[in-house]
């Protein structure tokens, strides 16, 4: 589904990604792990076209994304839930979802689907996004991305700073998307969450994916967790 090859990218003179190979398959959850600063967020941004890529290719269903500007990429089935949520804070919940649905003409049943997944958003449609609780904000960030009806969903640390019940809710949503055939890329730092959700785990260090492992071959205390995450 999503195929990244030998990707080199960074911010101006700073090279962050140095030859990343990575892929994500439909109906699978691929977790991305690595220490702070390993380049996980940068990889997702590069896939979205938000950082300049120097070398390498990014393909989605066989289509090369290289010459597509960022705003043309979601139309090909990519959606992104950024680290730190990055909602449109002054806009209402409904308006945030509306921005999510801009490309598809804001279809009613898509929005209904999102609101069924996260019923708490329905009660807060008219409220500015900035006034939501942390968990609600994360639901909205995911819901906004789902309005794009993505084939590939990139989630950057969606459980950061959330309480267990909220994490469980987000995990259920991720597993449901997986069952629907979405290719989920999940940046996640917590081992137990990764073991519960992942089909495969990519370990990043030094701006590269150093290892790509089937999740069922991993367990708590596995060497990779020690090497790449330090737990």
């Amino acid at each position, binding site marked *: 589904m999503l195929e990244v090859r030998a990707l080199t990218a960074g911010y101006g003179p700073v090279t962050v990604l140095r030859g990343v190979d990575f892929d994500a398959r439909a109906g699978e959850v691929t977790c991305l792990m690595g220490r702070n600063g390993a380049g996980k967020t940068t990889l997702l941004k590069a896939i979205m076209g938000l950082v300049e890529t120097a070398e390498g290719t990014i393909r989605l269903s066989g289509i090369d994304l290289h010459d597509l500007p960022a*705003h043309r*990429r*979601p139309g090909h089935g990519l959606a992104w839930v*950024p680290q730190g949520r990055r909602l*449109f*804070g002054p806009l209402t919940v409904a*308006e945030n979802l509306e*921005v999510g649905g*801009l*490309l598809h003409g804001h279809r009613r049943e898509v929005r209904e689907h999102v609101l069924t997944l996260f019923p708490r958003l329905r009660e807060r449609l008219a409220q500015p996004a900035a006034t939501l609780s942390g968990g609600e904000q994360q639901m909205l960030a995911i819901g906004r991305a789902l309005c794009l009806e993505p084939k590939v969903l990139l989630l950057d640390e969606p459980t950061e700073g959330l309480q267990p019940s909220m994490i469980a809710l987000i995990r259920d949503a991720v597993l449901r998307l997986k069952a629907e055939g979405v290719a989920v890329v999940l940046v996640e730092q917590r081992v137990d969450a990764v073991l519960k959700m992942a089909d495969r785990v990519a370990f990043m260090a030094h701006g590269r994916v150093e290892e790509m492992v089937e999740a069922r071959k991993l367990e708590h205390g596995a060497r990779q967790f020690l090497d790449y995450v330090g737990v």
Partner: protein
Amino acid sequence: MAFGPFLLLALMEGLVTAAVLALAASGLALVFGVMRVVNVAHGEFFMLGAVIAWFVASLIPGPAWMAFAAALVVAPLAVAALAALADALVLKRLNYDPEATIVATIGLLYMLQQAALTVYGPDARPVAAPFDLRLQLPWFGYSGYKLFVIAAAAVVLAGIWALMTHTRAGLVMRATQVDRDVARAFGIDVDRVYMGTFALGAGLAALAGVLIVPITQAHYLMGGDPLLLSFIVVIIGGLGSLRGTLVAALVIGLSDGVISMFFSPTLAKILATLLVALVLVFRPQGLFGTRT
């Protein structure tokens, strides 16, 4: 004349100032809000609106109202097109860097001013008001055209407000204002939004220029005052806040009218400047702005 009628007259004059100022300043606020560009050339778009209105009026024969109506349409559109061009040729290439665009728009200010001097000349020229009505009050007569200016500005500003809050274009602009990268990730063509916003902002300034020209005449240096006052209004109202801009324009316009009438225009300017200083010290985000 008793105090009451004097005050009424002062308030009406103040409302005219406020109306024109609100139009010009909302253009500046929109551009700063959405694009984070401080457009120093904003006053020149105002001037160009007035100057183009003069050209249009002198080219179109027939009754004054027809010439003026044509100017009201042609001048803002022409200025908006020019602004779109400036966006594509200059601002976009600077990647909308907040500092570089200040320098660039200073350059644009001089270019537009010198171009106007070359083509239009150094004279101040009048444009006839579209109609010659006078509203006769018991104490004094008042120009019907000035009332038209107030009404026209109110209609346009209501339209802008509706555009921002109730249309897809407005939603796209507000989303871009908050986070342009995330906006891109949802399919928003930020370059197009910026071009449209810059054109709209310039068009609003030009419209203000057209409306004022039957009252004050067109002159190639007329952009300075509105630029300064627009900045004052935008700072007091809160950078990029449309509502704050409108309220501040009313405050500045009305107090300018009243203080100019009862004391002196200079005192009005001094107090406005003092108000800016107070806002900057005690509430730097402006009366309606949010801290970022």
